[in-house]
């Protein structure tokens, strides 16, 4: 019999248990190392600001080809999976419209009030100028409007 062949067959037989042993040893060592490590202490030693300072985000983003990325996205199968009828049935369009128009009305009201307050200040400044008295802002307040019998400050 070929001595080399016998040696090879012995090696083949010994390889699986040796690999299993090596795997177990490696796992055990890893467990020991991880349990011995204080991750919080390690993280405390890491200067995140310094790390972030070294990252050139602009350069990183320059290397990302967004067009190429989007070209690889096939939207048709994604859209085909969206059941628009079901989506519309679940959407309270009335509430969406009401919220949107309510926001517009509220925004318009804020603008009108802002402008009127600005006009108040403009008139008050001019009156102060005519009276040769410096205008230092709107006078008041008399007290919290919701607190009964609040003491007047002025």
């Amino acid at each position, binding site marked *: 019999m070929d001595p080399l062949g016998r040696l090879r067959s012995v090696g083949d037989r010994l390889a699986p248990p040796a690999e299993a042993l090596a795997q177990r040893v490696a796992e055990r060592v890893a467990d020991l190392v991880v349990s011995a490590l204080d991750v919080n202490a390690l993280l405390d030693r890491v200067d995140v600001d310094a790390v972030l300072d070294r990252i050139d985000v602009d350069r990183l983003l320059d290397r990302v080809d967004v067009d190429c990325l989007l070209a690889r996205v096939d939207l048709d199968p994604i859209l085909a999976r969206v059941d628009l009828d079901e989506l519309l049935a679940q959407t309270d369009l009335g509430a969406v419209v009401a919220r949107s128009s309510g926001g517009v009305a509220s925004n318009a009201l804020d603008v009108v*009030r802002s402008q009127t*307050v600005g006009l108040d200040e403009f008139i008050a400044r001019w009156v102060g100028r005519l009276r040769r008295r410096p205008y230092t802002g*709107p*006078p*008041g*307040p008399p007290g919290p409007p919701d607190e*009964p019998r609040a003491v007047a400050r002025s």
Partner: protein
Amino acid sequence: MTARTGRATAAGARAGAPAAAQESLQGHYAGFASRFAAYVVDAGASTVVFMLILAAISFAVSVVTGQSINWNRNDTWASIAYLAWLFIYFAYSWAASGKTFGMALLGVRVVRSDGADAGARRAVVRTLALPLSFLVFGLGFVGILLGRRRRALHDVIAGTVVIYSWDARAARLRFLSRAS
């Protein structure tokens, strides 16, 4: 706080930003433009509502009796009804919430001189004294421009002041949240 607000507002005005955007003016005495705009809105709204009421009465009478009523501007009863309606409109609004429809739109409110709610008695006195401010070319309103507490004649008589009830700072935050 007043001085700080004043400085902030003055700085904001110098910077070209709306004063209201700099800091809340809630509780400060309301200025001439806000009060005048609120009054114009109220005058329009109350007149429109009164005309709608007259139209409804005319319609009801024509349905019931078959006769139509022609309201005339010189009609004494129509004038008395209009004045009564104006009294109810202003007095009830000020007594109930301290603000009329126009004041609510412009974000101003009537309160007692010490900041408490105006109450029914002051609301009635203020409403009755309001025409006095219009006498002699509206001299009663000069106090809003010149007075330290921006009070018109009817405010002085009723012991009330008009303040901003609108939180400009919250409005600014709302605006920013919508913009983002």
